[in-house]
């Protein structure tokens, strides 16, 4: 007999997401992902000064604003005719701002959003040691007011008491560490969330040697945490929940725009040399280059006025219609070459892995060896968590090199004129995956602005051909042990690190 499970809201993600599933004989037969908040930021951008885009689009998301800042700045650079032609300092400092933010974002996701699905905080009640932080948590538990840690789905906490206690201590420690990541952003970008340093033409601040030193030594603390706490914790959790290396795969097509510009002089953002290469790969792990013309969005099942077929974002439109028949989400359905693609750190690493990137290949292979798992284990819930942790390491290690390339006192800004009419686009990978902004300028104002955001890909509803989106596909076919505590569903959904404010905007 078919039964429906509705989870609304999905908590410990950004924003308003509902997941609806139909269960038959203990297996998910159907799943629907519904984004539940529409603000209309693309509509708000119309008619504004194009330079405002980097301010307004950061407000799409308070969790990953700086990646929107980078995408908007690359977009405006290209529309202003200076794409790939900014100063070295401008290019490198953008990387430093975005990279520091991403390392702290991954730490935040694992410990503060995902971990409570695997780690039983209440085991700290049995703690008998001298750690003052753990003892304060113990006192907290003894008070009996357990919000926000209880209620929760019960029945599948598997870690031994001492691992739960250590992971809880790391949860508290991670709060401090991620804050240091934000301090690193602030050094070059004024404040965060919603930083101000990244602008079209480069960045706003002229670097000094003390900024470089401060950044580097804060980074050392993040590196220490990533190497000695975060990655070992992911591996410890993976060891106890190995069945999660076999579920939640979904579409097995992976897309990344690449990340961190390593050179100037290449106007085409898709051809620019980057730390992570742009491209696509599937389960066969054969690398293919990125063709932006293959990106198109459907709105067949989204609450927008229909248009024929799918639209390339350069001519995309956003006309809300909540009454539309057959629609069930505010998220649009982006597809690549007509197919469903997953984006995120896993996609980014798999694309680089498939391209033969030695740093990525070495790290991924050695991690799989440690878990005694084949590469196919990456197509899973655990694969996404592992990829996120490895991304944090690769990013942090490379930031340590990049920060030393900054030239104190050298220019950070390339002058431009706002053209009467122009078009542009900017692509990067945000913490949650491939992020693209497209602009059309008329009379020096924004005539059209479209953002296709990581969770737009991942949380998308069905397209015109009825193909479910990546999260929907990842849930369908999953065995549910206890329909009153469907932890499998929320673990799968959270492994994508969804951000709904981003997805819809």
């Amino acid at each position, binding site marked *: 007999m078919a039964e429906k499970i*509705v*989870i*609304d*809201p999905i*908590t*410990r993600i950004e*924003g*308003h997401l509902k997941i609806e599933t139909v269960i038959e004989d203990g297996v998910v037969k159907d799943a629907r992902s519904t984004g*539940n908040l*529409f*603000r*209309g930021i693309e509509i*708000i951008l119309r008619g504004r*000064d194009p*330079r*405002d885009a980097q*301010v*307004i689009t950061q*407000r799409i*998301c*308070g*969790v990953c*604003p700086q990646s929107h800042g980078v995408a908007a700045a690359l977009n405006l650079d290209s529309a202003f005719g200076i794409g790939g032609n900014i100063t070295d300092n401008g290019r490198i400092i953008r990387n430093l701002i975005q990279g520091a933010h991403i390392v702290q974002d991954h730490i935040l996701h694992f410990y*503060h*959003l995902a971990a*409570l699905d695997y780690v039983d905080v209440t085991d700290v009640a049995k703690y008998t040691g001298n750690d003052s932080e753990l003892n*304060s*948590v113990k006192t*907290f538990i003894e*008070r009996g*007011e357990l*919000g*926000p840690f*209880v209620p*929760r*789905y019960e029945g599948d906490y598997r870690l031994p008491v001492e691992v739960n206690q250590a992971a809880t201590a790391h949860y*508290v420690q991670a*709060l401090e560490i991620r*804050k240091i990541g934000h*301090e690193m952003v*602030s*050094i*070059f970008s*004024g*404040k965060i*969330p*919603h930083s*101000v*340093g990244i*602008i079209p033409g*480069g960045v*706003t*601040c002229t670097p000094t040697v003390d900024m470089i030193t401060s950044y580097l030594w804060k980074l050392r603390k993040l590196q220490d945490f990533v190497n000695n706490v975060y990655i070992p914790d992911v591996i410890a959790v993976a060891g106890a929940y190995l069945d999660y290396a076999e579920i939640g795969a979904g579409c097995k097509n992976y897309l990344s725009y690449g990340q961190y510009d390593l050179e100037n002089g290449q106007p085409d953002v898709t051809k620019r040399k980057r730390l992570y290469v742009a491209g696509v790969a599937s389960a066969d792990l054969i690398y293919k280059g990125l063709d932006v013309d293959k990106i198109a969005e459907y709105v067949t099942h989204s609450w927008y006025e229909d248009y024929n077929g799918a639209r390339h974002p350069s001519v995309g439109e956003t006309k*809300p219609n*909540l009454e539309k028949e057959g629609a069930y989400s505010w998220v649009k359905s982006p597809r690549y070459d007509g197919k469903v693609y997953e984006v995120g750190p896993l996609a980014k690493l798999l694309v680089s892995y498939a391209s033969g990137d030695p740093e990525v290949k070495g790290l991924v292979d050695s991690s799989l060896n440690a878990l005694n798992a084949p590469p196919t284990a990456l197509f899973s819930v655990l694969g996404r968590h592992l990829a996120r942790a490895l991304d944090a390491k690769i990013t942090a290690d490379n930031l340590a090199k990049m920060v030393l390339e900054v030239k104190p006192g050298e220019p*950070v*800004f390339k*002058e431009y004129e706002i053209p009467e009419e122009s078009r542009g686009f900017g692509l990067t990978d945000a913490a949650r995956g491939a992020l693209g902004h497209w602009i059309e300028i008329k009379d020096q104002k924004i005539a059209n602005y479209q953002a296709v955001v990581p969770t737009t890909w991942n949380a998308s509803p069905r397209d015109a051909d009825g193909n479910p989106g990546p999260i929907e596909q990842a849930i369908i076919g999953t065995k549910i042990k206890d329909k009153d505590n469907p932890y499998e569903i*929320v673990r799968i959904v959270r492994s994508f690190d969804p951000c709904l*404010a981003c997805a819809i905007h």
Partner: protein
Amino acid sequence: MAQEIPVVWLAASSCTGCSVSLLNSASPSIKNVLVDEVIPGIHINLRFHQTVMAGNGEQAIQALEDTMKEKKGGYVLVVDGSIPSGATVDYCVMGERNDKPVNMEDRLVELAQDALAILAVGTCASFGGIPAAAPNPSNARPVREVLKEKGIETPLVNIPGCPPHPDWIVGTISSVLLNGLPTAADLDDNLRPLTFYGKLIHENCPRRAYFDEGKFAKKPGDEGCLYELGCKGPITYADCPTRRWNNGTNWVIGAGSPCLGCTQPEFPNLPMYQKVEDVELPVVGAYWTGEKEDE
């Protein structure tokens, strides 16, 4: 026995930036706020916050609705994000009742009626902010306007900023716990605590001397006052220049960027990088130019 203050946090049309900013609270840390006695003898008991809490779906909504009933008149309601209204009221919904989604306006009205106090955190909840920017596609409104229309008189404090500094949030909460609800004398006309929003950015700006001398930056990275690059410091009330952000690391003008005016009701409707016109700027140097007599 320490006193328990139940708190529920409602995320309306928001970006979660206000919550992330609160995570950056340095002293007390967010762990101190949520786990320890934030003020000696007082615990904050965060019953509902959808980005933080372990519970999912119905059990999370249950925690919200139980708090509303069991702690009637005794819980603090925090709201971030503005609230869609009118024909577009269902543009933001959360949780279901009788298989129908519940919109944010209904949630807010229910929770606001029986709250001890309401904190509108961020410029969206305080003044409409980003979703309410022209042409306001969702008819988003600030908390104050919804309460006024529904005749709800629960005390309200606005803590604007995009996002607000964590000290402004934690400081306002601590002040309420220590001294009770703020009086009219503690707030400005926009219901902002004067402690944090009492002075213009321009009054305490380290680049003020450049302004007084007429030395203006012409492009990003230049020395000088950022007024001609669009700085909203002369019309923006907040203590950013002295408080600084991210554990005192830096602040907007410190990074060479004009202030965007994000604590103001006008935000983000003024163009970000165009000079503010028609602003009455304070007269400076009157003593030295002889316009003011020595007293």
